[in-house]
C-alpha cells in the first residue's frame, strides 16, 4: 500500500535529473553560441563596411596623387600623398583607427576616420609605377598605383 503511493523511485529521479541537466547544458551552450554568433556577425559587418569605404577612398586618393611619402621618426605611421594641385592627403594611424585629413595649403578641407587598426604603409617601386599599400590586420592589404593613367592619353 505504501509502495503504491510512492511517486518516483530514486533511479527515475536520477534519469530525469540527468536528462534535465543535459538539456539545460545544451540550451545554455546554444544560447551562448547564438549571442556570440550575433556579436561576431555585427562586428564583422561593421568592419567590412569600414574596409570597403576605406579601400575605395584610399585607392581614389593614391590614383590621383602625384607622389607619396612615408613619415619618419615622430611621424612614423603617417602616409602623405601630394596632389593633385596643391592638395595634400595625410593618412595617420591611431589606436584602432585610421584618420584621413585633406588639406589645401594650410587649410584643412576634409577629415574622416575609419574604424580599422592599420599596421603600416608601404611604398613599392619594383617594376613600373609606385604602388602604395595599406597593411591591415589579418594579412589584409590594399594596394593602389600612384598617379594612375599619368602617361596615358
Amino acid at each position, binding site marked *: 500500500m505504501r509502495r503504491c*503511493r510512492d511517486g518516483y523511485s530514486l533511479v527515475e529521479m536520477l534519469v530525469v535529473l540527468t536528462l534535465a541537466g543535459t538539456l539545460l547544458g545544451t*540550451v545554455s551552450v546554444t544560447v551562448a553560441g547564438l549571442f556570440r554568433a550575433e556579436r*561576431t*556577425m555585427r562586428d564583422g559587418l561593421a568592419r567590412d563596411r569600414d574596409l570597403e569605404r576605406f579601400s575605395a577612398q584610399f*585607392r581614389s586618393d593614391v590614383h590621383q596623387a602625384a607622389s607619396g611619402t612615408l613619415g619618419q621618426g615622430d611621424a612614423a605611421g603617417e602616409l602623405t600623398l601630394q596632389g593633385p594641385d596643391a592638395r595634400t592627403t595625410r593618412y595617420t594611424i591611431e589606436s584602432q583607427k585610421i584618420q584621413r585629413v585633406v588639406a589645401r595649403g594650410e587649410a584643412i578641407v576634409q577629415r574622416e576616420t575609419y574604424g580599422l587598426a592599420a599596421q603600416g604603409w608601404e611604398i613599392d617601386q619594383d617594376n613600373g609605377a609606385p604602388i602604395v599599400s595599406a597593411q591591415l590586420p589579418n594579412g589584409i592589404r590594399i594596394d593602389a598605383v600612384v598617379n594612375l593613367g599619368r602617361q*596615358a592619353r
Partner: protein
Amino acid sequence: MIAIRWQNERGSHRVRRRASAGTTVVEAIVALVIALAVLATVGQLLSLAAGQRRATNQRATAVREAGNLMEHALARPWVEIRTEELTKLPLSASCRQGLPEAQVRWDVTEEDASAKAKRIRLAIDWQDSAGQRGDPVRLVAWRYADKEAQP
C-alpha cells in the same frame, strides 16, 4: 469548497494523487527528446549560418585580391601588359591561406579603337568547403598606351 468535500468523500488517496500528479517519466522523456530535436535543428541552423559567413569572407578575400592584382597589372609598363607576364604575378599570403586551391586567370586583348588600349580581364576561383569550384570573381580594366606607344 464543494470540490474539496467531494474529494474527501471519495476517501481515496490514490485518486487524489493521480489528479495532482505533474508528469510521468515517459512524458518527461518525450518532452526532453522533442526539446533535444529542436536544439539539434537550431544547431544545424547555426552551422549553416557559419558556413555562409565563411563563404562570404572567402568572396570578400577574392574581391580584395582581384583589386590588388589589377593595381599591380596597371602599374606595369605598357609593353609588359601581356597575359604571359601577368600570369607570373603571385597571390598574396592571405589569399593563399583563405582561398583553398585558388587559381587566377588573366586575359589581355588589344582593343581595336582610335586610342591604343588593352583590355585586362582577371578571374579568381577557388574550392569551397564542398570541394566545388564556384563562380569566380571577375574584374576587367582598360589600360591606355603611354604617349610614346600611341600611334
